[in-house]
């Protein structure tokens, strides 16, 4: 993991002093609310439906046990004993007191955490693959580049007042687990035929009101040009992005308006001025960034023997076997595995986690995974470096603490925004819908038979629950003060990114579990062999689903 040096600490200390003074001026009435707004947002502080909300960055999802324990302390002392893992790998507190936020940020800074640019019209936390560095299909570890981007984008003087928020995601694997096609900038780090490292660059993807799949604007950008190229894109956007209408201000609208070809040419022209300047990365800097993401102290293990032992344990324990199948995945090092702790047991808001649970995860990370964990955009927690011989012991402890629900990647591993229960933008509640669906599908064996199935729920068209890219997407809508839910089918955020199609008229909250059940019934009666929902949908189209769901009762 990246470790701060004195430079990083100083910059963050200066930031906190700045924000403490700004908060003081606001409380004294010397700073108008509308003037304080962008300043507090760029420190992670929203004013929400019930209370302020504070969003803390987890850079590209990497977090260590010391940080987890500090978050637990913050949740306990400054909040109501829990927090929330967001769909951008960040952590949100829902009940902080505005006057205490500078103190919270100071406590977080001691463990190298912050809320800088976690909201506002600026470059946000860069997200990545939660299995970075350990995935078997990885070409290049994306994390050193994420850290380079984090430093470049933090307190960038030119890009703090963009037309709108700006999100960057980086993946380094054959299989995209970072949803790079639906980000303002998506980067795939890879090696070319000559063995050189560089980036495939996508621009103008995004969800929200106008979902768009990003356009490829550069096939191979040599790694040393990463920052100058990003700077060129951001400069064009800062100058030319629309500022007259916040719903048309994202870069995707600009790219569509001028076409991806023209936009790419503009970037190229701007970049030609910048590419050989001092912002060009040096070999030493790339190596320095890489030096923080070397392998932990892995043991040399007999992979086959370790797997055989795990298989034996699985034969003797059905619960363990199910957990292995859904929550454990392969690792590039023989004898190791990556484990996902589920934050989606039925009855808990997806992604919510208590102070005590944070400490338990810290303990598990220390005991089983070199003291590190990762947050995922699916709102779960990953322990990336677990010895296979420890899996059974880890499963037992995780089960005791409530993280062993064996539902990763299934219908009940629902991605869900905070919705109308917390968020002032929401048109409808989303958490109760997630819970009702989880209760409808409470038979885990039935859920396993359905295979991988992503169900995503957003409480409004801002799409924090990524409903457009769920195999099944649910969008809360407001109709004359009443909450209704629109269903979309066929979305995906993987390599084959697609946006879901709206099924038809929306449903009441009470109808939703039955509607989802009918969709699943259609899937089951049409699927071939082990076919996944998304593939069946792509093969047979929306008509059979519509027919079933909207059939008049006889």
């Amino acid at each position, binding site marked *: 993991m990246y470790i701060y*040096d004195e*430079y990083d600490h*100083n*910059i963050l200390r*200066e*930031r906190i*002093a*700045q924000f403490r*003074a*700004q908060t003081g001026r606001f409380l004294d009435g010397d700073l108008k609310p509308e*003037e304080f707004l*962008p*300043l507090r947002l760029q420190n992670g502080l929203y004013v929400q439906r019930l209370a302020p909300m504070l969003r803390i960055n987890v850079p590209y999802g990497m977090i260590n046990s010391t940080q987890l324990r500090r978050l637990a302390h913050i949740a306990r002392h400054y909040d109501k004993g829990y927090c929330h893992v967001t769909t951008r790998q960040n952590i949100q507190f829902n009940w902080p007191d505005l006057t205490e936020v500078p103190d919270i940020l100071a406590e977080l800074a001691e463990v190298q955490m912050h809320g800088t640019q976690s909201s506002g*019209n600026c470059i946000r936390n860069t997200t990545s693959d939660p299995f970075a560095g350990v995935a078997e299909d990885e070409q290049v570890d994306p994390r050193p580049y994420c850290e*380079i981007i984090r*430093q*470049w984008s*933090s*307190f*960038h*003087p*030119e*890009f*703090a*007042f*963009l037309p709108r928020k700006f999100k960057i995601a980086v993946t380094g694997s054959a299989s995209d687990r970072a949803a790079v096609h639906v980000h303002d900038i998506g980067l795939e780090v890879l090696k070319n035929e000559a063995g050189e490292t560089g980036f495939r660059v996508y621009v103008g993807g995004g969800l929200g009101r106008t979902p768009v799949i990003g356009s490829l604007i550069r096939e191979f950008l040599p790694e040393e040009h990463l*920052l100058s190229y990003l700077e060129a894109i951001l*400069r064009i956007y*800062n*100058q030319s992005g629309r*500022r007259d209408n916040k719903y048309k201000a994202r870069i995707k609208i600009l790219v569509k308006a001028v076409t991806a070809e023209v936009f790419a040419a503009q970037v190229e022209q701007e970049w030609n*001025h910048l590419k050989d*300047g*001092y*912002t060009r*990365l*040096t070999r*030493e*800097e790339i190596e*320095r960034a890489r030096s923080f993401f070397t392998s932990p102290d892995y043991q040399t293990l007999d992979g086959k023997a370790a797997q055989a032992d795990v298989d034996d344990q699985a034969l003797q324990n059905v619960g363990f076997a199910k957990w292995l199948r859904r929550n454990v995945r392969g690792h590039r090092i023989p004898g190791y595995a990556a484990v996902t702790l589920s934050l989606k047991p039925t009855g808990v808001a997806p992604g919510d986690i208590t102070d005590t649970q944070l400490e338990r995860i810290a303990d598990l990370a220390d005991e089983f995974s070199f003291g590190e964990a990762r947050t995922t955009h699916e709102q779960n927690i990953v322990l990336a470096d677990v010895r296979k011989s420890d899996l059974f012991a880890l499963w037992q402890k995780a089960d005791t603490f409530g993280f062993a629900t064996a539902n990763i990647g299934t219908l009940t591993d629902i991605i869900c925004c905070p919705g109308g229960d917390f968020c002032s933008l929401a048109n409808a509640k989303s958490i109760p819908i997630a819970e009702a669906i989880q209760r409808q599908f409470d038979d885990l064996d039935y859920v396993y038979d359905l295979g991988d199935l992503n169900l995503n729920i957003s409480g409004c068209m801002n799409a924090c629950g990524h409903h457009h890219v769920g195999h099944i997407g649910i969008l809360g809508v407001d109709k004359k003060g009443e909450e209704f839910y629109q269903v979309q089918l066929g979305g995906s955020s993987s390599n084959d990114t697609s946006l879901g199609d709206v099924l038809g008229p929306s449903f009441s909250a009470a109808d939703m579990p039955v509607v989802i059940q009918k969709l699943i019934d259609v899937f089951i009666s049409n699927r071939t062999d082990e076919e996944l929902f998304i593939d069946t949908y792509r093969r047979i189209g929306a008509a059979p689903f519509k027919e079933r769901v909207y059939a008049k009762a006889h």
Partner: protein
Amino acid sequence: MPKLIKDGVITPNEWTLLEKPEGDAASQEVPAGKVIVPLTVWQAQKETLQQRNDIGVWLDSGELASELGDDAKSLPLVAVHFPLFMDGRGFSTARLLRERFGFTGELRAIGYFLRDQLCYLRRCGVNAFEFTHNEISLEDALESLNDFTEYYQASVDQPLPLFRRRH
């Protein structure tokens, strides 16, 4: 005389700002003395105005640095207008004037911006700050000029990014 912040100190403002003309920019009268004219007036009357050494030009937030371009080099002052503090186009304009068009004179922020933006503006090459919209204590505002003393990125005030200085 109204005051402004220039090069880190509070000084009298010797320049008059000429509003955008409602009619034809070519026939807009430019008074004697130190005047900051809108870009359109400069473009329309360039031949006459460049005879004078007391003319500055201001760019509105939608006007790119390249529209003034190399003309900047011959001017003693260029101002960048912020219609609202949320409109960050001027940050790019300032950097481009300094870094691409070689402007070395007074680069002034005008309009509605916040003292909390002074440090970033300074980093982008702005060295004078005239708060034309909001009542503000310049003494207090000075405190924000150096909110940060260390930076990750290259900019006008520090062309070397931290990674080139860290080793």
